[in-house]
């Protein structure tokens, strides 16, 4: 059986779980919460199975085309972290894994409504961006032991940053008081954009026929809305999304009330934000920046070339370094550091997707 069925089941489970987590915030019923968690665990088990299956398939694929390669080497080269599709899948897996650990450790389900949408965003992106899903042969530049460790640690780091983003967002929603506050405007617009993209990709996904989905090369990203060929649809999309963001700004204060009834304390959210960054920062520094530099040096003789991917990783690193210094020695507290945690994850998204989609560089092959 192919691993893709299990991936599809897990993707479905996560999206359903997201809806139930949001419902849980509203109804605050324990049973609903348990269903959401069960759904997430089910998705996680399915996805883990799929990952192992894909690894095994890749292993045979690699071993058959590289007969001179040893068992361990084949296992390392076959790790399912080799292109954009596999890395997005692994990102979602790590994000859910960290989320489940936090849910059990803090005995609190409410954060699910803030973390699962990030997973949904990544999963929908896979389906509408035209990312190749098949197992592809590994090009020479990627045939290195560094691949596994560099990608594994970077994405665990990204996932930890994703959780900190969810917690920091929940934090600023909880602490803002009035609609005219700058922080309130910031988060309502951010959530507005975030949900707009999520919904637009959902529309992309639903509008795709089976045949179009099979056509791998073309990106359908936002093609049904903002990037539509019809000018009317584009205008309508902008008007609807601006109205939608405005509505979030207008009614968002209610979200604060929804959160207020839960056992989510600001201390807990602040602690989760910090802890996730405390885990993500060393992983990202060591796995992303250092290992990436050492690998580049062993493959090209240059450990740092200021190419867009490297530079954006460094920008991300600066933002999180700023968070840590501002919080520990700069005396920054509360909203200001939470906003830094959010900006940090936006930089992560840009490092990860923006550079591949918008800019080019050595990592261009990662977009395949």
């Amino acid at each position: 059986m192919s691993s893709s069925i299990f991936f599809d089941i897990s993707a479905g489970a996560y999206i359903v779980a997201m809806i139930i987590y949001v419902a849980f915030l509203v109804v605050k019923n324990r049973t609903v919460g348990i269903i959401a968690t069960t759904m997430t665990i089910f998705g996680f088990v399915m996805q883990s199975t799929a990952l192992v299956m894909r690894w095994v398939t890749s292993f045979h694929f690699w071993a058959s085309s590289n007969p001179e390669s040893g068992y361990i080497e084949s296992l390392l080269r076959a790790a399912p972290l080799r292109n954009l599709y596999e890395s997005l899948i692994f990102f979602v897996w790590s994000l859910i894994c960290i989320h489940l650990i936090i849910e059990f450790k803090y005995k609190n389900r409410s954060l699910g409504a803030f973390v699962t949408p990030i997973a949904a965003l990544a999963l929908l992106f896979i389906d509408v961006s035209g990312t190749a899903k098949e197992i592809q042969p590994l090009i020479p530049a990627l045939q290195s032991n560094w691949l596994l460790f560099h990608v594994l640690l970077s994405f665990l780091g990204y996932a930890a940053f994703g959780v900190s983003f969810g917690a920091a967002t929940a934090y600023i929603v909880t602490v803002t008081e009035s609609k005219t506050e700058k922080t309130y405007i910031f988060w309502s617009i951010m959530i507005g954009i975030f949900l707009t993209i999520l919904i637009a990709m959902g529309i992309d996904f639903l509008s795709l026929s089976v045949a179009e989905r099979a056509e791998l090369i073309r990106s359908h990203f936002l093609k049904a809305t903002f990037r539509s060929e019809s000018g009317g649809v584009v205008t309508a999309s902008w008007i609807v999304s601006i109205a939608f963001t405005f509505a979030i700004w207008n009614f968002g204060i209610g979200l604060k009330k929804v959160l207020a009834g839960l056992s989510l304390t600001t201390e807990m959210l602040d602690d989760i934000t910090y802890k996730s960054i405390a885990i993500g920062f060393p992983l990202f520094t060591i796995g992303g920046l250092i290992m990436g530099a050492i690998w580049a040096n062993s493959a090209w003789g240059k450990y740092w070339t200021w190419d867009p991917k490297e530079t954006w990783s460094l920008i991300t690193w600066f933002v999180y370094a700023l968070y840590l210094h501002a919080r520990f020695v700069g005396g920054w507290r509360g909203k200001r550091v939470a906003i830094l945690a959010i900006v940090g994850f936006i930089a992560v998204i840009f490092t990860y997707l923006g550079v591949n989609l918008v800019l080019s560089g050595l990592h261009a092959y990662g977009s395949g």
Partner: protein
Amino acid sequence: MGEKEKKDIFESTWKFFASVKLAIFLLIILATTSIVGTIVEQQAEPAKNLELLSKLFGDTAAPTVYNIFAKLGFMDMYGSWWFVGFLVLFSINLIICSIDRFPKTWRLINTPQRPLSENAIKSMPVRKEATFNAKLNTAKDEFLNTLKASKYHVLEATEDNSIQLYTQKGRYARLAVYVVHLSIVLIFIGALIGIRFGFKGYLNLPEGRSSDSAYLSPTEPIPLDFVIKCNWYDTKYYADSDTPREFQSEIVIIENGKEVMKKVIEVNDPLVYKGITFYQANYGMLSSTAAGQFILDITPNGGQQNTVRLPYGGSFEIPGTGIKGTIVDFSTALTRDRYTGELKTYSEMMVNPAIAINFEMPNGEKFTGWILKRYPDTGILPGGHKIKFVDNWGIEYTGLQVAKDPGIWFIYTASILMGLGLYICFFISHRKIWVNIANDKKSVRISIGGSTNRNRLTFEKEIDKLLSHAAKAIEGRAPQK
């Protein structure tokens, strides 16, 4: 200027460079300005960026904007005086603030821990209290054992009616942040050494040719004190696909006319000689292919294999058969057109090299056939004779990246230090624990107090565990009383 004023100026300058505010300002500036260089293509042809700027600012404004950007150094931003200036400020800030804070940290590490009054323990950030029906010494022994089991080095203070155990762990973890700062400084030093004493060059070496220098640019050769030769270059493909599997070159180092080193290099596996590293970077076809040779392995049915090297148009004979062959055509990438069925060349790169050979049988019969390098079966003739197209040698060059970087050892050392430093910084904390055990009528009263510089929740759990372990042990010993 008086002595005092001089001192004041020095002090305020020092304070400025040691300040967190400067650090925060520099981090923000570095993060935001770095973005520019990821949008404007660096060290590119002006036309490329002009095109980008026309899209952003319109055709008329683009040249003006370009000139302003160029003056600001945006076209080679990461080497511009102001960006380098911020990096220098950043490292000065890092060094001064570390020196400024270090003595305080050192005192924190080296101040001996002292026993505290029971009231002071009860007001520690993390605290626990309990009462046991046990003897003072029994309770002390069990807490001592529990703490020792967690690798704490415990000190004791005894008073009339009470004993205090106090201990600390991980105090040197407070130094980790300085290790991380040091590693960043080492990276800057390593980069400077690399720029001053190293070079990044390239060398395009045709198959069979040698060179005694690499190049920074076509007009700037860097002499090497040895000769490097390329025996051959080859691209390997995945079966039935045009996806490259490996780019390989066989490289030989010759010194004083003697071959001292030979290695097949590939991407991710370079050759290092005398501190200079040769990386497989790219490859290409020579503009003139006249000097090319075709290497064929000829094996008559049941006979010995022999290798021939032939020019374009060259002829050979399959030994003992009287069959003659002449190379009449060559294609870098042969394919059969999907619609017309005709043979054609679909790429100028050597993706699927093939030669056409005109055979003349002993009876005078003639026919022509294509032999493909990647598909050896195409070389089996009627009668079982085999002709293997091994290589078309001498028409490709290997593109080598040539680098010397004596600063790389600083980078490696810094990487290890940064990894260790970050790990210790975030996951090991300086924990102090005091356990006061006092007689209270017939029982003993326990007060535990503790403090940590990081990860307080984990530490609270550790204290809970300490108490419950010791409690279990004390209660286990109770019946013997």
